[in-house]
């Protein structure tokens, strides 16, 4: 009866208890029903039942969501609000496709070289005003990890991770643990340091780390309803990583590992890639979990600093890793770890959200940074390039005297 048939059962599962209000970062700012899962799902239900047209008018209902998954985690009725929004975006994208978006997803995102080129061009033309053109055309909204960098592209980036790869510590000779490191677009193009720290630290702990050239994990595409593109990217990545035949697949980017962990959702059960996707997903491990395994109870020595931790949404709710990064930090001798209030609340980066909804993103960031300030921490640690850049921007913007670092950098700097 409706384009939303496939998710209708999921939609009616919402019994409107409203618990999503207590965790939704957007609702916290707007205090309006339309910006929380209950409201979004209610409108989708109207659309599914034909009392409201399912068209462009609902775009903000779908894209105003951070996809942080917090409501889904908190839902007593087990409503899959994250999946519902993604699916609805997919349905909407099929019919209402802005040309620019289609161009980017079809002709840039799937080609690593072009992606790299885009990034370089972006920087090159930064001073010449292309930035504002990109912004105005909405192109920024679909650039995914690259777009995240709009207005926060670190000034000192001259080379990508791939450019720097040869400077990495080599694998030790007699290693038994084989690990595939997934270096995503954000790490490669914007914050190569954290990827390097991840690779080096794992090698020092005795892993044989392979770093195959992978494609975009597909998250930006699936977030924008381009499931087909995401599926195509997933197939390529599955082929690459399965061939590595490692024991673990790890990434310094929680969004990328979360995305790979959810690859099976992209495939029909009869698709030959479904089984492969499951096999791969089972190997995905969070960086912090892997390090804890490798340390096996040994303690690290770190600097005497007050440290706190921001939990990326994809880490807490796609990988379902909550305690490990904090335990890892707290166990480092010298470091005094302080729990960040609302640590697992989204920082407002949320993929391209910070570019498409700059005002809301900033409000969410402000609350995050005020929480950071309250901890009095000198170092704010996280596990995702997008979060890292957003938090760096926040520290500057709201004048919070804190240095933002990736967990791998802390581990890499610590001594055994």
């Amino acid at each position, binding site marked *: 009866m409706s384009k939303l048939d496939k998710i209708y059962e999921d939609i*009616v599962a919402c019994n409107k208890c409203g618990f999503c*209000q207590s965790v939704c970062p957007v609702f916290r700012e707007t*205090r309006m029903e*339309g910006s929380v899962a209950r409201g979004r799902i*209610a*409108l989708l239900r109207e659309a599914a039942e034909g009392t409201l047209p399912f068209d462009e008018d609902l775009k903000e209902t779908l894209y105003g969501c951070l996809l942080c998954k917090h409501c889904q985690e908190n839902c*007593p009725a087990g409503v899959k609000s994250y999946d519902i929004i993604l699916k609805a975006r997919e349905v909407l994208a099929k019919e209402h496709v802005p040309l620019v978006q289609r161009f980017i997803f079809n002709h840039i995102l799937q080609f690593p070289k072009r992606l790299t080129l885009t990034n370089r061009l972006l920087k090159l033309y930064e001073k010449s005003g292309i930035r504002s053109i990109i912004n105005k055309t909405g192109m920024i909204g679909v650039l995914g990890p690259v777009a995240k960098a709009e207005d926060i592209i670190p000034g000192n980036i001259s080379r990508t991770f791939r450019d720097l790869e040869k400077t990495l510590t080599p694998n030790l000779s007699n290693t038994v643990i084989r690990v595939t490191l997934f270096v995503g677009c954000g790490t490669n193009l914007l914050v190569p340091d954290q990827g390097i720290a991840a690779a080096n630290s794992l090698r020092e702990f005795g892993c044989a780390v392979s770093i195959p050239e992978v494609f975009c994990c597909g998250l930006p595409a699936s977030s924008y309803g381009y499931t087909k593109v995401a599926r195509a990217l997933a197939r390529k990545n599955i082929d690459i990583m399965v061939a590595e035949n490692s024991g673990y697949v790890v990434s310094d980017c929680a969004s990328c590992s979360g995305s790979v962990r959810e690859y099976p959702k992209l495939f029909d059960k009869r698709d030959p890639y479904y089984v492969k996707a499951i096999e791969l997903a089972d190997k995905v491990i969070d960086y912090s979990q892997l390090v804890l395994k490798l340390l096996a109870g040994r303690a690290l020595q770190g600097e005497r600093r007050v440290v706190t931790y921001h939990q990326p949404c994809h880490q807490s709710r796609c990988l379902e890793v909550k305690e490990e990064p904090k335990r890892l930090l707290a166990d480092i001798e010298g470091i005094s770890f302080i729990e960040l209030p609302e640590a697992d609340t989204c920082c407002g980066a949320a993929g391209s959200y910070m570019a498409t909804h700059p005002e809301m993103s900033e409000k969410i960031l402000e609350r995050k940074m005020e929480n950071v300030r309250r901890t009095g921490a000198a170092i704010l640690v996280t596990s995702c390039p997008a979060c890292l850049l957003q938090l760096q921007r926040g520290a500057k913007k709201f004048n919070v005297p804190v240095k933002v670092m990736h967990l791998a950098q802390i581990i890499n700097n610590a001594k055994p």
Partner: protein
Amino acid sequence: MSRKEAPRWASKLDKMLEKIIAIVGNTNVITDKKDLLTYKYAATASGMPPAAVILPESTEDISRILQLLYRYEVPVIARGAGTNLNGGTILAGDNGETVVLELAKLNKILEIDPDNRYMLVEPGVTNLEVQLAAKPYGFYYAPDPASQQVSTIGGNIAENAGGPRCVKYGVTANHVQGLELVLSDGRVIVSNGPLEGLPGYDLTGIMHATEGTFAVITKAWLKLMKLPEATKTLMVIFDSLDDAANSVSQIIAQGIIPTTLELIDKPVLQAVEETVKIGYPLDAEAVLLIEVDGFSVALDSQAQQIISICQKNNVRETRVAKNEKERDIMWEGRRGAVGSIARLKPSYAEEDITIPRTKLPEMLRTIARLAKEYSLIIGNVFHAGDGNFHPVVLYDERNAEETQRVTDVNYEIMKEAAKLGGTITGEHGIGIEKLKGMPLTFTEDTMVFMRKLKLAFDEKDILNPGKVIPANICDLVSRSNQCQISAERKPKIKDFMEAIEHVGIIIGEAFLDKYACHGQKPCCAVKANSTEDVINIVQLANKHQASLIPWGQGSKSDVGCRTVPAETVLDLSNLNRIIDIDFGNLTATVEAGVKLKDLQRLLLEKNLFLPVDPIQKAEPTIGGLTAANSTGSLRLQYKTIKDMLLGVEVVTPEGKQIKYGGKNIKNVAGYDLCKLFVGSWGTLGIITKITLKLFPLPQQAIYKTFSMEDRGLFQSFLNEIYTGLETSSLDFVISDRIYYVNIGLSGPAEAVDMQAKILNGLFKPGIKQTAHVEDRALQYGKSFIIDKLPTGYFQHSGLILKSSLLYTDITRWIDTILKAAGDTKVIIYGHAANGIVISYFPEVIDNSTIRKAVSKFEQETSWGVHIIEICSNQFESGHTDARKQMEFNSSHLKAALDPSNILNPGRSVGGRYYE
């Protein structure tokens, strides 16, 4: 919607919205049609979308918005998080011009005062945010509805929310000290603030469970309590529902009041076991989750008592949580219960009824029978300790026939609850979903009276119209002439006296002295022998325009003032039957004329008591105590009659009999008339029958009295006790420059011993212990004070000044009074932790002295209300907020409910404001 189709009100609304936008700004008004669709539902029900949603950010915004809505007569629904389970915040009918006043942006915690144990919050703060804010200070806020992570304080008050902890600590109404309110015309009123024991009608109490139909709540002063030192959690498994249910009532009847006492039945525990592995045996019939809290030394013995009761009832298995983790697992089962069972079907309805605890097995059997009859799955997971059931009915809302069966079975459940002396809603409220159940518990006259009460607050009926009271009742009450006391009564006393001769017993002229107030005899007095007599007499008084003064023992007749001379006294002392003492349910129902001491004597025999102890020598009646909401030293632990009153029967000023409540601890059906009549001093109705909550005597109770001469020592000693101990009473008397402090400790023996030890450690040079009394009946708190007061106090000579203060201002006030008194004799006593101080001047002191003292004190402090209870002189000056509350009281409530001014005309409610 195009202009052509626009309804008639649209242009009026547009005009008004323009003005509202000027107040709150564009971004705070929602008019987009799609966005408005998200305001057409609440947690369970759904209706038409509103015409607009307005998000104010301050009390001032709200006041200005309401002025506009009032002027344009636009209906408005105040809303918090929209989590209500009765449709309370959705449009009741098809009046599409209704707007929603969304209070979510008023979400600031304004003040946390750990010294005076309150928190001031805006209405949009969630219950959980309050808990989290209180915790670092070692405090908590007792009400804990299951929705606490989202439901707001404003909503909790509007629904009088409960939660698992209610068994021991009571509902929201018992924990809200004061409110700031905006009336429908935009006037802002402060009721009580952080103070206790104020005169006037109890607006704060009345406002609970009114579902936003009386006023908009804009601030709330919440009472904070010390976090218990320890908690013990037990999980008890039964093979029979009856055994489980019997254990529940026996535990409480034995005098153990657990913090929570929850029951989970078979269908639910099976569903829970499927989602979370708690380790429930799948063939068990019921699981009880029981928690006791308090001092750790006392918990083991309490847990043991509970276990042995369960063993007598054939318990299958008992588990005691050994650590926090085990406790969490036990609670996880309870918390996930509704969610788990709800997953079995696409939709569920959660009913909400309360029945007297002793009727638990009967109700459970009834629900099982109904489930079978209507072929529905019904699970029970509920607050068994207070008899509050939440049958969860599973269905598929897309199946119309099944949905109808659910509606029908819910009505049947309400009917059965009403039949068992229960109520149709314990904590969810009426809203629109339970309107049809209202006639099951209330007579037409009662509902008409409630409607009048609503219109007294909101005469244009713009606040959340269509809720609580069924439409056919609303049609019976006209909206006009609500706020005027009819100009002149022309009493025909002689005709009246002749008429009542056939009804009650006329008191002979010679005995009228007994009924004198302020030394003035009434024209006549009549004794009623029954409620019917009272009804007839009031009706005749209406006919002859005579006024009546309800009278118990006359023990408080001189308190406050009376601006109209007394005409007829209606003596109720013959209404003296004790109707029912329910030892299993811990309630007593008595007629108004029953003397406190007579009831108390019966209760003590059974190890129970009614914890009220007014500081007087006369023998007050229960009716009188209720009308005056009078108590004494025990108010610290047990609060006042307001918090114990479960049901009343009242004869209205028009001579109609109305009835509210019953034996249920949780009850949010209709407006809470208990809160209206308690402390109303016979000005709004004549209370004829009263049902009160009873309490078990403590296992042990001791009092220790200390005396000291040094003021500094007194202050520090008092502070140490106030902060370091959990006393059941904390009183002081200052007489002849000697400071006496009396401390009551009661509870489980181990806890009393432990606290007594701590108390001994606070002993200092300069402090003398003057008494040590063991008194399980808890009467020494009162006699300590009475013994130190001169006889004049009890004969009502001199000046009695009652002050409600913050705890932290008490010593400063004492200094002020002592200084003002100079060489004049003054005795000061008070209930320190409640901030109540009474200054007694045996000889009337010069006006200006007191006035100066009060006004100096008011300049230095933000809160304080002073009233004259007894005095022949006239005084002036007063407190602004208090006066505002008074103005509203007299002009609105009295006028609306007693327009002919029949009952106790000109009577001050509780005392004369210091003005």
